[in-house]
């Protein structure tokens, strides 16, 4: 079966609609959120129509079925990322997942391996999404630990030259993104993981922009924790994943507390169930878990390698076409080496907002602004950029539409 994005588009009902008076939808904003194939929508709908009940809590048939679907979804996600089933925790989003790990570390008492105190260090990078930056700033403020970071080079790569002074014996956790949502850069993990583990630190990987676009196997990567959002990987809104190595999850204190995550409860205290339950308080996002499972199965059927290859092809095409446009500056790597399909750029003195608005009038959806990575924007010397981000349903036709749109914008605003 060859990869056919036009056939794939037919699985996504949103492409049946048009934009701004009948224009074809050119959706280049998958970095913000992906569109949903019908099978994902159906999975949520089937849950509600046929099996809806609170999981783990009832002895009746609906509760059994709901539990089967929910735990089956956990199994599907685990298989997709090469994890053990009990290592996969459903959250509401990557943002929650990253808050989970940072708050849970903040909850670790003295003696617990996750305990942080003044003198300890947290390491991030300059290219983090706010979701993988602010929670660590807050944890540092709460515990007295310091926050340090890897810098970004003008080419949009991590500067690893000072790795040994960035990650030191004081470092307890290194949190970084697998792929930058702005630059498209795919970060080299080996050296960072090796150094982190050498000093006894854990690695938290923000895989929001990698899991949807390339094969990710948590065991192969060698990271300790990994997070991503369902809505960026063809799944529903309202579901994310937090993965951790089981021996670490056993020691990590819980974050959200409440029903279903307990072993025993008295008025004065409680003890916890083992993972994954320990980290899933309350009636979970069951229909969304079912939808996410349908999403990763849909991708597996197509083959994540095929998705990746397709995106590399389109990225190469766009980068080349863009390099021919004068006054267009790509913010990030200009070739496809270790690079995904998020392409941010500036264009002469046409502000990204105006460019985005013009493209929108042509049916082309891009994102403009700082993309929740404000410090990175400052570092790259651009107050804002326009970002086109690709996915499996994009075509060369979409790329051509974007290039035409950019050229037309120049005429429009140059009038």
């Amino acid at each position, binding site marked *: 079966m060859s990869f056919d994005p036009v056939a794939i588009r037919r699985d996504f009902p949103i492409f049946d609609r048009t934009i701004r008076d009948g224009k074809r939808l050119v959706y280049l904003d998958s970095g913000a959120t992906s569109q949903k194939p019908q099978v994902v929508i159906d999975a949520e709908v089937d849950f509600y129509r046929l099996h809806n009940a609170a999981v*783990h*809590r*009832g*002895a009746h048939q609906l*509760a*059994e079925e709901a*539990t*089967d679907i929910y735990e089956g979804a956990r199994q599907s996600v685990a298989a997709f990322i090469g994890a053990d089933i009990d290592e996969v925790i459903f959250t509401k989003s990557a943002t929650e997942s990253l808050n989970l790990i940072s708050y849970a570390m903040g909850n670790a008492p003295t003696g617990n391996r996750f305990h942080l105190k003044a003198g300890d260090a947290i390491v991030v990078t300059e290219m983090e999404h706010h979701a993988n930056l602010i929670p660590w700033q807050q944890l540092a403020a709460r515990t007295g630990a310091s926050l340090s970071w890897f810098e970004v080079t003008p080419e949009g790569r991590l500067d690893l030259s000072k790795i040994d002074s960035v990650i030191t014996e004081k470092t307890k956790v290194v949190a970084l993104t697998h792929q930058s949502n702005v630059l498209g850069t795919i970060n080299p993990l080996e050296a960072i993981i090796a150094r982190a583990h050498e000093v006894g630190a854990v690695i938290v990987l923000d895989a929001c922009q990698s899991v949807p676009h390339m094969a990710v196997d948590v065991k192969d990567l060698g990271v300790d924790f990994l997070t991503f959002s369902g809505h960026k990987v063809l799944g529903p809104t309202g579901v994310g994943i937090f993965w951790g190595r089981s021996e670490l999850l056993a020691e990590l204190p819980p974050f959200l507390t409440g029903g*279903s995550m*307990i*072993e*025993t409860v008295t008025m004065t205290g409680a003890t916890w*169930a083992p993972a994954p339950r320990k980290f899933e308080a309350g009636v979970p996002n069951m229909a969304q878990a079912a939808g996410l499972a349908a999403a990763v199965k849909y991708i597996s059927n197509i083959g994540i390698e095929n998705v990746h290859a397709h995106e590399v092809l389109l990225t190469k095409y766009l980068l080349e076409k863009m390099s021919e446009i004068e006054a267009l500056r790509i913010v990030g790597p200009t070739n496809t080496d270790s690079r995904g399909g998020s392409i941010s750029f500036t264009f002469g003195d046409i502000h990204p907002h105006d460019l985005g608005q013009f493209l929108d009038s042509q049916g082309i959806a891009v994102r403009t602004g700082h993309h929740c990575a404000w410090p990175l924007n400052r570092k790259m010397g651009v107050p804002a950029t326009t970002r086109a981000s690709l996915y499996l349903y994009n075509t060369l036709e979409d790329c051509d539409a974007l290039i035409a749109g950019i050229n037309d914008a120049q005429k429009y605003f140059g009038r």
Partner: protein
Amino acid sequence: MQLDNLYQEVILDHYKNPQNKELASDNDAQVHHVNPSCGDEVTLGVKLDGEKIASINWDGVGCSISQASTSIMTDLLIGKTLTEASEISEKFLHLMQSKGSEEGDADALEDAVALAGVSKYPARIKCALLGWMAFKDASVQAHSAKEN
């Protein structure tokens, strides 16, 4: 009725007349286990005679499945060696996970095969395993207490 597979006569008998349900004071190890989702509890003691299980005794509150399963387990395992007990426990665990596809090895499991029907009711498997898990825990503790 399908439910009869779950609630076999043997189970209701053991529920009404649970065996070895009186805690002894001279156990080599005693544990307390709970089923967090429903609140069922069991306290279970083990006494060893070398490698042999001299006594399993218990107390607890819970549904017919958890009570009967614990009762049947004690009948079955008292007098066995630790190795035999652990083999039988493995077989029982396997049966519970069989989703109704197996009948169980009656030679090894004896009355415990009456619990085969539980495996079709996922929410109840934990009930059936509560006493067995407590036994596993207690026997390991008893064994290592003896060793030291």
